[in-house]
């Protein structure tokens, strides 16, 4: 029976010949990623044994550097946890730290054809690596690290065939906003990306789209493998891997062709991204207090380059805070070397170290009552980044950067 990418990965990982929508599968987990949050005193449970320390990665990302005593205690607990169980891949505060999904990318821990879990909803970002990656709950994660297994209900898959290439100034985030605005939620369904246009998307761009799979409410967001991905992975991880391609006659719930050339800059209105996208022109002129570029979805080197391109030689408008957050310290270093950080800081941006921070309303850029933010990050739910009365628009890094310069929502095309 023909299968999609995730169905094939599940078949291999569950030891079955065939997996189909409607099945409940129990699969071997190839990589389980724990976070600083996993060790917080109100969240953690005492683990007595782990299945395989070499299948575990620990990445501190939500509360870094520790903003309070409890987080500092959690960090210390996690370090001791890693020592006790012999977990070598601990990404502590320092040069190898970053947002977990970006750390997984930087080090290519998500190998094509494998199963990866993490207790954060945007784990699907690693679907860009032809990997069956998804967020699971905290208890699920403990089950995965102690038993080596997890379960999935297999959903139907919607296939997106990409054609053409994005025009300059139009980004992967705009493509996501188009999908969310046009097709709405994909609850209980997987999304699969491939087609001739894939070759024209950088790995960073694919990671943006895959991360935002969670915001389509999709189960898995998985990309086909190509030469560019194979090279990217091989340059970062010597482990062998076997990419998985869908069968040509695999059954899809729907098959949609997306012409990348026709994408345009979009903005999601506050409180939701589902069925909520409009062209930038429709909200241009909306005054903002904060502009944010960061997170697993939009803190890549590509994203920082785009922000720097837009603000180069300009100044952030008075009264506006532009926060730029590289999603790993390696990205930060690369952005320094490329001159992006200098450009951003000269323009008046605040560039911080890698953290989930403000994206989830935790710290380092939380919104106050009645404020307006335009963000290139993962979510714009009501109250997401702070006070529930704050309004959060969502757009691409270029649109956010242009808005910071203008002091109101603006089209980056006018800054070319």
């Amino acid at each position, binding site marked *: 029976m023909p299968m999609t990418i995730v169905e094939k990965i599940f078949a291999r990982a569950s030891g079955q010949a065939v997996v189909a929508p409607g099945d*409940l599968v129990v699969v071997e987990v190839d990589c389980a990623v724990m976070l600083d*949050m996993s060790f*917080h005193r*109100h*969240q953690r*449970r*005492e*683990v*007595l*044994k782990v299945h395989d320390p070499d299948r575990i990665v620990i990445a501190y990302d*939500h*509360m870094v550097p520790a903003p309070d005593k*409890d*987080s500092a205690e959690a960090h210390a607990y996690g370090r001791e946890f890693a020592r006790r169980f012999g977990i070598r891949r601990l990404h502590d505060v320092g040069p190898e730290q970053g947002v977990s999904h970006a750390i997984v990318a930087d080090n290519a821990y998500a190998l094509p054809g494998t199963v990866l879990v993490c*207790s*954060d*909803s945007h784990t699907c970002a690693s679907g860009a690596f032809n990997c069956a990656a*998804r*967020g*699971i*709950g*905290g*208890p*699920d994660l*403990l*089950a995965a690290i*102690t*038993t080596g297994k997890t*379960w999935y*209900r297999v*959903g139907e898959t919607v296939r997106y065939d990409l054609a053409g290439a994005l025009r300059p100034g139009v980004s992967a985030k705009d493509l996501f906003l188009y999908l969310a605005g046009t097709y709405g*939620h994909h*609850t*209980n369904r997987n999304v699969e990306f491939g087609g001739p246009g894939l070759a024209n998307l950088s790995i960073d761009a694919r990671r943006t789209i895959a991360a935002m799979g*969670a*915001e389509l*409410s999709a*189960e898995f967001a998985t990309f086909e493998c190509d030469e560019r991905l194979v090279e990217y992975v091989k340059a970062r991880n010597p482990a062998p891997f076997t990419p998985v391609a869908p069968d040509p006659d695999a059954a899809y719930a729907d098959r949609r062709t997306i012409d990348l050339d026709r994408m345009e800059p979009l903005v999601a209105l506050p409180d*939701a991204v*589902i069925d909520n996208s409009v062209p930038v022109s429709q909200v241009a002129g909306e005054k903002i207090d904060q502009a944010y570029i960061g997170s697993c979805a939009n803190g890549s080197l590509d994203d920082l380059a785009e922000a720097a391109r837009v603000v180069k030689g300009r100044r952030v408008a008075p009264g506006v805070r532009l926060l730029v957050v590289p999603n790993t310290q390696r990205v930060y270093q690369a952005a320094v070397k490329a001159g992006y950080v200098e450009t951003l800081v000269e323009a008046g941006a605040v560039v911080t170290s890698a953290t989930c921070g403000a994206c*989830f*309303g*935790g710290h380092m850029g*939380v919104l106050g009552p009645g404020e307006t933010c335009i963000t290139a990050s993962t*979510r714009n*739910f*009501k*109250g*997401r*980044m*702070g006070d*529930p009365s704050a309004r959060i628009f969502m757009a691409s890094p270029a649109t956010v950067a242009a808005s910071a310069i203008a002091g109101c929502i603006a089209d980056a095309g006018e800054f070319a």
Partner: protein
Amino acid sequence: MIAGRVWTFGDNINTDLMLPGALLLATEEEQRRAVFSANRPGWVDQVRPGDIIVGGRNYGMGSSRPAARSLRNCGIAALVAESINGLFFRNAVNFGLVALECPGVAAAFAEGQTAEISLADFTVTNRDTGATLRALPVPQMLLDMMQGGGLYPHLERQGLIAPR
């Protein structure tokens, strides 16, 4: 059989409404007090143990945070929605919250009516109107966990984590 008073919620109810990010690391009681504080202030003072939530499409989209635990801590006996986000459903299993997908349920209930849920045949009945709907079956392995207090007791019994 589960029966209880119904609270109705619309489409796309997200995790942050049930568990605001600022309280991610707070105590369970602090988290319980904040459920629906942004979209329905005061709800936690009105909800009673045994009540049932009837939701719309895409219930629980968002974060991996334990929002299902907060509903359980509010005394919610079951959640029935048109469709449920896969990650939220996992956490319903993880934290022992009965959660069913039931097409047509949003239109079948008005707030304050009484719902009756049978997990033997996956039916949802409106006691006030007499209407009965068929919910999507939940695999036995997951149903056992939902009804058995969630995943932690299971891991404790296997000696994988310490009892609290």
